[in-house]
Each structure stands twice: as structure tokens, then as C-alpha cells.
């Protein structure tokens, strides 16, 4: 009974995630797509919770659903035409439909083969500790501190660069 319950929960979450991902692609209104993307992020976060990785799930919510999606919506609003349908027109010709479909299938087949051909290692013998945050922190600021700091500097530079680009050169 309980075993079935686990897979049932997984199925419900996955169905929710896939349905909202389909919403992103199929919605004609581009703002609806962006909001469906938020639901997709929340679905992925729920999957993380289901797997017991609550910290990762919360990062997913905070960074993707809470911040990045807002940026996406802002970007859409900046480039939007007054009529939202005109912002997201259907692809004009049959040829582009065909090429797009073909490319999508190729990517799908590639991903499917990659998944099928990989030899997945069996689960590590000991399950992760309950206090995953501590383990994660020790790894990030211990073994991988150089990579961590490099990523931090990269992000800082990107932010400073964006500000300079947006403000323009003050002393030309």
C-alpha cells in the first residue's frame, strides 16, 4: 500500500510537471507560457522534495520560480506588442514546421539514446544524511571551494557588466 503510494505521488508530480511544460510550449499567449514555466519549476521542486532533497527543491523555488521567472516576465513585457497574440505568432510556413519538427525529433532521439545507453551506477550503499545542508556546505566550501569562488566571481562580473552596459559610459 505504502509502496504504491510513493509511485503514485511520483506519477502525480510528474504528470503535473509535464502538463505545465506542455502549457509552456502550446500556449499562444506568451505571458501564459511564462507563468506555466513557473508551474514547471514548482513541479521539478516537488520532485526534489519527493526524492528527499529538500534543500535543492527550495533552491529551485527561490532561484527559478521566485527570481528567474520574474526576470523572464519582465523581459517579455519589454519586448511585447500591445496585442499579446501578435507577440507570439504561429510559425508562418509549412516548411519551417517540418524542419522544426525534425530537429525536435532528432534531439528527442539523441536524448533518449543517451539515457538508454548510459550504464547507471547502482545507488551508493549508504543513503544521504538527513542534514544534507551541512554536507553540501562542507563540500562547497571545502573540496570545491575554488570552483565555488570562481562561479561567484563570474556572477559578480556579469552583474557589474550588466550595470555598466545599462548605464552607459559616464566619461566618454
Amino acid at each position, binding site marked *: *500500500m*505504502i509502496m504504491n*503510494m510513493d509511485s503514485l505521488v511520483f506519477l502525480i508530480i510528474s504528470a503535473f510537471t509535464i502538463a505545465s511544460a506542455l502549457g509552456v510550449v502550446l500556449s499562444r*499567449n506568451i*505571458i*501564459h507560457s511564462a*507563468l506555466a514555466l*513557473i508551474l514547471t519549476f514548482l513541479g521539478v521542486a516537488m520532485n526534489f522534495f519527493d526524492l528527499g532533497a*529538500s*534543500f535543492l527543491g*527550495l*533552491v529551485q*523555488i*527561490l532561484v527559478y*520560480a*521566485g*527570481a528567474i*521567472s*520574474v526576470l523572464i*516576465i*519582465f523581459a517579455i*513585457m519589454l519586448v511585447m506588442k500591445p496585442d499579446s497574440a501578435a507577440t507570439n505568432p504561429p510559425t508562418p510556413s509549412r516548411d519551417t514546421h517540418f524542419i522544426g519538427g525534425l530537429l525536435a525529433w532528432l534531439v528527442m532521439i539523441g536524448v533518449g539514446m543517451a539515457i538508454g545507453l548510459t550504464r547507471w551506477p547502482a545507488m551508493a550503499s549508504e543513503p544521504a544524511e*538527513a*542534514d*544534507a*545542508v551541512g554536507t553540501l556546505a562542507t563540500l562547497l566550501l571545502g573540496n570545491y571551494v575554488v570552483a565555488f569562488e570562481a562561479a561567484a566571481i563570474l556572477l559578480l562580473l556579469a552583474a557589474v557588466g550588466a550595470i555598466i552596459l545599462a548605464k552607459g559610459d559616464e566619461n566618454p
Partner: protein
Amino acid sequence: MENLFINIARTLSDWLLQLGLSHFWTDLVLLVVQWTAIILIITLNVIILVWLERKISGFIQQRLGPNRLGPFGCFQTIADTLKLLTKEDIIPSQTDKLIFKTAPMFFIIVSVLLYAVIPMGKDMVVVDLNVGLFYFISVGSLTTIAILMAGWSSNNKWSLLGAMRSVAQMISYEIPLAFSLLGVVMIAGSLNLSAIVAAQSNIWFIVLQPVAFVTYFIAATAELNRGPFDMPEAEQELTAGAYTEYTGMRWALFFLAEYTNLVAVSALAATLFFGGWQGPLLPSWMWIIIKTYLIMLVFMWMKWTFPRIRMDHLMSLSWKVLVPVSLINILVTGVGIEIFKGMGW
């Protein structure tokens, strides 16, 4: 008295187990009962809070406030609620109907979800999550989206302006909010709210982290879109900001969610800085209520004392004052912890 609610929950689960239900279903029923209780408390609490807010604003502005219905006008909010419930639900024709309808629901759901991790008494927490504080911050960040949905779908320039302001403000103030809480986390050594409360059995963190508390308080006021940071719904210039097109119960849901957030943020402040449910004589659940209410009174006092500040001042306050101050606070806290450890404390 101390274990009143815990005993109720235990009696209920024992009774359900006797009826032959499995542990899974018993827990599920108990969870539903807990959430129903939380939602009921929140809804009834808002009735008191709105009355209190109007009375306090009247007191500060040397007016009487509501005084017609009942003693001290205390039935005023109930009458207002009934009015809102029976009002016509107007949905303007040019709105994006789906998003317009879901925005208030999304807002209230997110606000109620915040209560999952707050310890409401000794051993009284719905989910004793290991990363409870982080949960609070990340789920709280979703309220931005609800306001954005409301502002955009209304198809009204005031709504959109209000939503834009609100988003800019909430995203900027999330950073000092999270940073100010890091000092507390560093001292307590845990993100679990029950553990943070337990760490304060000797000394409240307001004594050890006064700077963090001030930063948290200012940032939380901005996160709540409350005065003096209520730019998003500045009624003199934006009518009602993102809520302009909403009427009746849908508008009331936004109102309810805002007060729900106020209670949640105050309860978090009480938990992190004022020892949570710990206190002498009275039962623990009563202490958290008293502390939360005192903090909410300070929020109201601030709102009705200070004038609204300008948008650019608001942003520079966050980026040029609060973020550096909270970063320095983290540094000082870290150094202080090491010094105390070195002294063998």
C-alpha cells in the same frame, strides 16, 4: 494548559487508530485538521487585526477610529467582511480572465504555506523541516509572482505600475532579508526553526544580533509592501496599485493574504529574535501569540508614523545601506563566533 493542543491532536489520532485506520491515513487526517485550524485562526485573526489597525491609526491621527458597531467598534470588521462577501464580483471585460482569477488564490495559498514551519508552541509545528528558515524565505519569494499576475492580468496601467514597483521592491529587499537572517543561523548553527528556538534558551538573539534584527525589520516591512514602503499601492497616485480592478471577495483575498503575511513575518521575527515560544508561567503557545502581536503592533506603529518614501530612495536604501550593513554583520558575527570559540566559550 501547556499541552492542550498536543493532547487534542493525540486524542484525535488515538481515536482514529482505534477506528482501524492505518498510520498513513491517520497522519493525513491529522494534517488536514492542522491546516484547517491554521486557516481558521488566520481568517479570524485578520478580523481582529483590521480592527486593531484602524483603531491604532485613529489613535495616532487623533481620531476615534471605528466606534459605531459594538463596544469600541469591534464588530466593524465583521460587518465589512459580510459586505465584501455579498458584493458583486466584477471582472472587467479586457482582463486576462484565467490569470485574473488565479492570482488571489495563488497569493493566499503561498501565504498560508508559510505557516508550515513556524513553531507555534513547544512541539507544535506542522512540519519540523530541517531547512525551515530557508523554506520560509523561498516560499515567501513566490508572493512576488502573485502580485505580478494580478497587476499584469488587470490590463490597467495603475495595476501594472503597482506590480512593477512591487516586484522591484520585493526582489531588492529579499537580499538583505536573507542576509540578515544568516547571522542568526550562524549563531544557532541550524536552519531548523525549532533548533533556533532551543538555542535561545539562555539569551534571546535580539541581544546578540541587534543589527540583524533592525535590517530584518526594515526589509520585512518592504517585503510586506507596508507603509512607509507601500509604494506598490500608493493610493494617492496609483488608486490601489495591483489591486485596482479587483472587487468584493477577490479583493478581500488579497487583503487577507497581506495580513496573513504580516502575521507570518512577525511570528518569524518572534521565533528568531525573541526566543520563540519560550517564556515563564504562561503556556508556550500563548507566549508566541503575545510576542507576535507585540511585533505586529510595532509594524502598525511604523506604518502610521512615517511618511511614504520615494521609489528611488527606497531602492538606494536597500542596495546602498541594508545590503552592506547585513554583509558586515555576517562578517562581524563570523569573527565574533571564532573569538568566542577561541576563548573556550
